[in-house]
């Protein structure tokens, strides 16, 4: 059973509608990420779950019970705040023990639990440090320890890693993931960093302007973005207008290509997504499309090459091979590299369509 459920949840401040109609289910023991641009309502969702704000419409269920108006201190949810929100008047030990002391736990038990939590976040021996003796990354860990020591059912993390530098961030990503597996607690992690979301999550929810655009596993979302917004937001992509010819065939620049999508009306205007790393540069004769190289940027592991085709569409290609600016080249790709997106297709419609022809294919 779902531990947490949003049903048609709305939230507005004055006339400003922040969440329009949010629906999702959270299962126990998984790592969820809410991903979306700044101001899309991610923090607002977490605040509703934690109980710092109440919804204006719809229902929030926790373990089957409606908790719309339940005060924050009565929810089995803990939060790791973006700014850590550690109590400056308390040292590391007392910060972590805060929740346990409120539960009137025995001193010995508190001691034990705090040490255990500190060990989990690799801070054993830091119990008696003051906060100003910690680095940013260490404070981050204390904040996590303070939350998990209460053994919540759900842990909310709001941009928990955004204050850290790149290297530490990468480290903490895998540590967090490991911690989540170890504890079996449901994590709901908010970020606007798509790379982070792809690396850490079991499930990603992509939110934009108060609506969930798509949810699914990282691979699903990367390979089969539902619409222009998702394709653009997740990873790098070429989004090119095209026309559906028939099932498993789509026309780009008037040229027909075999693809793996079906169930779309022939002649329908669609968009195709091609990931830059799926495109290969070849000679004009061997190429499926002809293009001219506009620029080339070395990025350490590969070159990012910008080209424009004979129809004037811009393409982004990631290649480990160098080319020459101004040169005529050919672009090739495989049928499965093409992903066709219909305009205004909902996730349910997409799933239904996928099912209708994948049965045929198999």
């Amino acid at each position, binding site marked *: 059973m779902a531990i947490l459920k949003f049903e048609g949840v709305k939230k507005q401040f004055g006339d400003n509608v922040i969440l329009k109609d949010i629906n999702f289910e959270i299962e126990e023991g998984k790592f969820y990420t809410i991903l979306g641009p700044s101001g899309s309502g991610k923090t607002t969702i977490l605040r509703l779950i*934690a*109980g*710092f704000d109440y919804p204006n419409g719809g229902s929030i269920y926790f373990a089957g019970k409606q908790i719309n108006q339940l*005060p*924050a*201190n*009565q929810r089995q*949810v*803990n*939060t790791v*705040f*973006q*700014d850590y*929100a*550690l*109590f*400056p*008047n*308390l*040292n590391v030990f*007392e910060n972590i023990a*805060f*929740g346990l002391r*409120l*539960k009137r736990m025995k001193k010995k038990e508190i001691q034990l639990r705090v040490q255990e939590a500190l060990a989990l976040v690799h801070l054993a021996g830091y119990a008696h440090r*003051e906060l100003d003796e910690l680095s940013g990354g260490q404070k981050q860990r204390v904040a996590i320890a*303070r939350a998990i020591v*209460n053994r919540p059912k759900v842990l909310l993390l709001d941009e928990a890693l955004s204050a850290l530098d790149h290297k530490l961030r990468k480290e903490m990503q895998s540590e967090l993931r490991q911690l989540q597996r170890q504890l079996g607690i449901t994590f709901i992690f908010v970020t606007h960093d798509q790379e982070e979301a792809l690396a850490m999550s079991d499930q990603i929810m992509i939110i934009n302007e108060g609506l969930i655009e798509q949810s699914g596993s990282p691979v699903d979302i990367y390979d089969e973005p539902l619409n222009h917004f998702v394709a653009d937001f997740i990873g790098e992509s070429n989004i090119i207008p095209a026309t559906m010819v028939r099932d498993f065939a789509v026309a780009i620049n008037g040229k027909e290509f075999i693809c793996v999508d079906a169930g779309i009306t022939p002649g329908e205007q669609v968009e195709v997504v091609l990931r830059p790393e799926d495109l290969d540069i070849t000679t004009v004769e061997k190429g499926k499309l002809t293009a001219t190289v506009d620029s080339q940027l070395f990025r350490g592991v590969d070159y990012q090459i910008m080209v424009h085709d004979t129809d004037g569409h811009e393409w982004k290609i990631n290649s480990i091979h160098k080319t020459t600016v101004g040169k005529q080249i050919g672009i090739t790709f495989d049928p499965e590299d093409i992903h066709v997106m219909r305009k205004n297709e909902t996730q349910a419609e997409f799933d239904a369509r996928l099912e209708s022809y994948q049965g045929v294919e198999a």
Partner: protein
Amino acid sequence: MSEKKHLFFALPYYLWLALFVIAPLVLIFYQSFLNLHGQFTVQNYLDFAQSSVYLKMTFNSVWYAFLITGLTLIIAYPVAYIIAQFKSRDFWLALVILPTWINLLLKTYAFIGILGEKGSINTFLRFIGLGSHQLLFTDASFILVAAYIELPFMILPIYNAIVAIKPSLINASLDLGASRFQTFRRVIWPLTKNGVAAGIQAVFIPSLSLFMITRLIGGNRVITLGTAIEEHFLTTQNWGMGSTIGVVLVVAMLIVMLLTDDSKKGGRAK
């Protein structure tokens, strides 16, 4: 290069300190060892320590300052807390600060108008048939007016401490299971203690040496060290004794500052 520049810009400040802080203190200290005939002596201190009148005055000063401080604190904390929650808190804070721009004497006279025999309160009491009462020249009116005048100086530091608390700290406390009251006791109060200490200093110390209000509102029924100093300098012209009492007040203030200053200990839990 900056060393010299530094000194240059700091000079007015040091000059100010020397002329208006250090010099008066030194003078008072020096004067306190002179008797009426300008001879050097410690008699003033002996007189002070042996006279029950002075000891009673000292006790009175401390006791009334304590009451005034206590009353302002009880009023100021909730007021500061509530103002801090308002959207238009700057406006409300301005209302609190505004009275400090009005001359002290003016405010005191205003209270005579309110509390006096023909004042608005007594007029009202007569109107509802309760007859007139002696409000002016009572301990209560003295404390009330003194507290009113000192109130902004208590509210300001407490307010500043409250608004400095990040809202996420309150949320974190609730999130960890604390009730509103527990959040106050475990988070808000410890984080505003320094503000309260600053407020106590700002109110207690001036309250020790009030003299004008004791006369105009307290009707000289309340004699504090402040009144005594005024008497010695202006009436009996015993500057030596006046200075001695001044030194005693300075020492009392130092003690208050030491007691309320826990910034070095950090106020942390073990």
